[in-house]
């Protein structure tokens, strides 16, 4: 318990504490407006479509907002001092060594994937995927107002990625990861000598495959089959689904690849936590 208090009162963790309240608050705020829109069928702000002068109406809002935020920042800066530890020493590695709080979701991915995936490929795909969103989401509805009914899939995917895979993993990385990057519950003592049995095995081993060559092909088949789920679904449904025809094949391939890549993280997490799977595909060049 003392440990949790220590973590909470760490000055650099204040933003994450703030997020614990801000994220639910803004989800509630947007949900309220979305529900109103979905119930009445009319966006909640549709009546406010007349024009007003920027000066004074918008400038006044900006000014009030700036004052309030500066007040908060001022109080925050007076009350809490920025951290300064002892001088840097390349010979003295702290345990655990943590990245800045906003990168802890990425550091958390390192538990489940090798660095080239967790540190390079997946972050790259996040960036590409975010930029691609407006070009692959062809649903013209739900532009400029909160709604759930008119774009459930887009909202579900983005909210899952942002809230679960980004914010929650950040919180886990901050509060639950201790020495050796092991999970410590808030009431547990951060024991640097905690022994965690390394019982992880590769997926091929679970299936009774013992020689490397077969394991390699097995892993390749699993990963390729996983990403082939997208095209298979397309071939199965494209005749009957008007939506898929409108989306078009190229957009669909991009959507399904990005979607499956994103889901690969929770899938790997479940495999690791439930079945102690280390790698799905072990090849001479890389492991996945």
């Amino acid at each position, binding site marked *: 318990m003392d440990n949790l208090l220590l973590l909470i009162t760490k000055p650099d963790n204040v933003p994450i504490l*703030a*997020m614990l309240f801000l994220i639910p608050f803004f989800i509630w705020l947007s949900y309220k407006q979305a529900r109103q829109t979905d119930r009445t069928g009319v966006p909640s702000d549709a009546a406010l479509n007349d024009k*007003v002068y920027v000066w004074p109406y918008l400038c006044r809002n900006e000014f009030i907002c700036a004052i309030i935020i500066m007040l908060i920042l001022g109080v925050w*800066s007076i009350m809490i001092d920025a951290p*300064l530890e002892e001088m840097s020493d390349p010979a003295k590695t702290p345990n655990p060594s943590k990245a800045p709080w906003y990168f802890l979701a990425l550091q958390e991915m390192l538990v489940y994937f090798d*660095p*080239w995936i967790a540190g390079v490929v997946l972050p790259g795909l996040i960036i590409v995927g975010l930029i691609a969103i*407006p070009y692959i989401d062809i649903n*013209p509805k739900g532009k*400029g107002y909160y709604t759930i009914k008119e774009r459930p899939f887009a909202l579900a995917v983005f909210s899952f990625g942002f809230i679960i895979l980004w914010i929650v993993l950040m919180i886990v990385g901050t509060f639950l990861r201790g020495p050796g990057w092991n999970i410590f519950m808030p009431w547990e003592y951060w024991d640097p000598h905690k022994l965690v049995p390394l019982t992880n095995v590769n997926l091929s081993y679970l299936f009774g495959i013992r020689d490397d060559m077969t394991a390699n092909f097995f892993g390749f088949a699993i990963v390729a089959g996983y990403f082939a789920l997208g095209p298979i679904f397309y071939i199965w449904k494209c005749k009957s689904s008007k939506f898929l025809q409108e989306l078009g094949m190229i957009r669909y391939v991009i959507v399904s690849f990005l979607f499956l890549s994103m889901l690969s993280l929770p899938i790997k997490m479940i495999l690791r936590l439930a079945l102690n799977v280390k790698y799905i595909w072990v090849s001479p060049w890389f492991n996945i």
Partner: protein
Amino acid sequence: MNEEHKGLKDKITNSDIWKSIFRHGYEKTGRRYTLQVLQNVWLHLHPPRISRHALNFRFTWCMGGITFLMFLVTAVTGVLLMFYYRPVAEYAFRDVQALEFDIPFGMLLRNMHRWAAHGMVISVMLHMFRVFLTGSYKKPREFNWAVGVILLLITFFLSFTGYLLPWDQLAYWAVTVGTNMARATPVLGHEGPFAPPDITQANDVRFALLGGTIVGPSTLLRFYILHCIAVPLVASLLMALHFWRVRKDGGISGPL
């Protein structure tokens, strides 16, 4: 206001000096409200008039504006901090200590810079969340969303490069952990898959970022220059583009 004062006021506001600075009066007319925005360099990125729904805090959360405000705060406090800080491994930590203990309001200055930076990371993430929830990235705002994604990355990178500058254990190891990822870049990192044999610890992409094989004095200088000059410049240019496009794409999105 009595006659005598009114005469004086008219005298001042009709003088050549006054009129050379202020191009319009302060009467409560639509014409003056328009001129107020059009003739002011700081306000002219705004259109003269906007839809009423754009004023609604419930809709906008004001997060884009807060992000910009945080950027301005970090810029101002950052310039002041630069007077007291030398990006040299021997001095950096001592200078931050001096800021905390010797320089008047140095601690407050440093706190404001750090918390505004953290605040900016929070507000930029919430801004993106809001823009997604309201579908504001849809036609015709696709490109501005892409600019926004780049600005999000720049915010992270600004914060990350600044993280190293105090040169304490927290800074040193957070940046070591963060930049270690670059080792594993496919092809370009010496521990990444498909790295050719010529790629070693001393010439891979991580070396280019750090200016060495570990975080060291040249990393400090590199991050300092990136943090104080290069990245803020790019950020400012992209922000100008971002705000300009908000207006050119029809103002902030609304139900109509």
